[in-house]
């Protein structure tokens, strides 16, 4: 076991200091507290909450998850207690831990994003926001914000105006040109990017001939999508100057290193929390060991160190 507050592992993203680059990903650790019984939250670099909207949301009908080879599909439907309940009921307890709190925020219109941010602005102990822009923009024809560089930029710009804290925009892999969206979002003022959200997928029950998910399609996550995620991080790292947070199938120290070398200043552990709740702890220890063994003063030396000729 290595000391979690090992200064070798400290990273700074958008002016916020994180004890280490290992965060838990939105939707895979509840509101953080839900993991407190299983891992030491003080040892986490950061916690991204389940996506929060201005109003509570009931979520989709079951079934909501299906396991696939190397991953899983989910269509939770963004069930959440709402930003207000988070601030009132979860945040006071959560902020007692020595970690960084990054609420994940979403809406179906720009106004809804702003509303959620305004509620969260009232909360004490929030360090940054992560914008989930993979929701359909119901006012602009139902296309996902993340699918269109202009819409992604528009929501980023609006949120930046409303937010006193840094804004991390979460990219979708379901686009033709992730670099273009990344550039648009950077220009709109994003402080950092996190990538990737899930890839849209589907599974059909061959006996009932029905989609396995009540929502028909769902988001594919887990080791299956890791190569897609590493590629997106690499492409974004060539496209923008703001820091990147890597997500997608990370379950081991080696996975985390791959993303960091590709260009990520921090990483998030998602689906792995489900099948190996201590994955994030092992990665924190593993990265510290790696720095030690390789004589790195700081993990930052690794960020984007991929060699391409």
């Amino acid at each position, binding site marked *: 076991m290595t000391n979690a507050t090992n200064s070798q592992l400290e990273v700074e993203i958008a002016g916020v200091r994180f004890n280490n680059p290992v965060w838990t990903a939105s939707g895979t650790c509840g509101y953080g507290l*839900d993991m407190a019984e*299983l891992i030491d939250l003080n040892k986490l670099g950061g916690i991204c909450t389940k996506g929060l909207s201005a109003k509570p949301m009931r979520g989709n009908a079951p079934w909501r*998850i299906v396991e696939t080879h190397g991953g899983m599909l989910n269509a939770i439907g963004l069930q959440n207690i709402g930003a207000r309940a988070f601030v009132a009921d979860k945040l006071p307890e959560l902020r007692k831990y020595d970690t960084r709190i990054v609420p994940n925020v979403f809406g179906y219109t720009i106004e809804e994003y702003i509303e959620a941010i305004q509620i969260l602005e009232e909360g004490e102990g929030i360090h940054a926001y992560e914008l989930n822009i993979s929701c359909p923009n119901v006012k602009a024809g139902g296309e996902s914000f993340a699918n269109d560089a202009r819409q992604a930029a528009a929501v980023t710009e609006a949120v930046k105006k409303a937010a006193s804290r840094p804004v991390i925009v979460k990219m979708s892999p379901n686009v033709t040109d992730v670099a273009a969206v990344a550039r648009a979002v950077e220009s709109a003022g994003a402080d950092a990017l996190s990538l990737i959200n899930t890839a849209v997928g589907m599974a059909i029950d061959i006996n009932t001939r029905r989609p396995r998910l009540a929502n028909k399609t769902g988001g594919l996550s887990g080791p299956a999508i890791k190569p897609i995620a590493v590629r997106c991080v690499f492409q974004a790292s060539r496209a923008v100057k703001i820091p990147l947070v890597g997500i997608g199938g990370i379950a081991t120290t080696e996975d985390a290193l791959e993303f960091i070398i590709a260009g990520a200043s921090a990483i998030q552990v998602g689906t792995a929390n489900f099948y190996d709740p201590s994955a994030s702890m092992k990665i924190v220890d593993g990265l510290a060991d790696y720095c030690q063994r390789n004589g790195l003063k700081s993990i930052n030396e690794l960020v984007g160190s991929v060699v391409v000729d």
Partner: protein
Amino acid sequence: MSAFGKIIDAVVPVERNEIVRSGSSRSYGYLRLRLDEPIPVLPGQFAMLKAHGIHEPLLRRAMAFYRQERMGEKLDVEFIYQILGRGTQELAKLAPGDKVDFLGSLGNTYDINFAAGREASHEALLVAGGVGSPAVFMLAEELLKREIPTRLFLGGASHGDLCGLNDFTALLGKERIACATVDGSYGEQGFVTAPLERQLKALAGKPAVIYSCGPDPMLHAVAKLADAYEVPAQLSLEAPMGCGFGVCVGCAVAVKHDCPANSSESFVYKKVCTDGPVFWSKELHW
């Protein structure tokens, strides 16, 4: 500490893993694991299990605790699982000494105090189908310990699908068990709800409570009977589970709630893993 005990995430050794094949061509595994730490294990609770070190499938599988036995400083826990898909197939390969990823104890427990009653005991009617039966064995033990009159209604496709029948018989005695098999190979032919309904009729208003675990169609039928005979029922549900400890919200079940004035919603989604797996049938929005 969760509301119902302690959760540990440990790699534990297999003590025993016995595979049995039923006449109806289904297969079951009887798995015994040894925990270093004797955590509290309550009736109806479950663990998330996975053969240690395998790359596929990724997710652990929810399994109800069947029995527990204190072994000095350690605790042995038993499970009965039906061998279905990739996860249980990997469990079936385990030999003594092999390792299992164990996460437990998870979930809530049955409301046994209800059966105990405020004044006199209710009669406890245990209704289990297929691999639902493991989830009520410790409940039966506890009910007996508290001297609550208990009957078991056990159903399955065939004789071999009446999981744990011998153990239940040793515990409760033959006369308190009514079995039904679809193929008639043991007990009466048909569904377990038939003997249950006869008993509900026979109760003639005597206070009773149903505790049930089994496949969804059985639970629906049980809930209907409970309704018709005005006997409260607790149902132990299944749902596909991503995590088992409340963070993925994959295991949603619709539960009725008193709607706030400004809401048109008549239900909310609760989590089978942490709000359940045991729910009062009246709560469920089916």
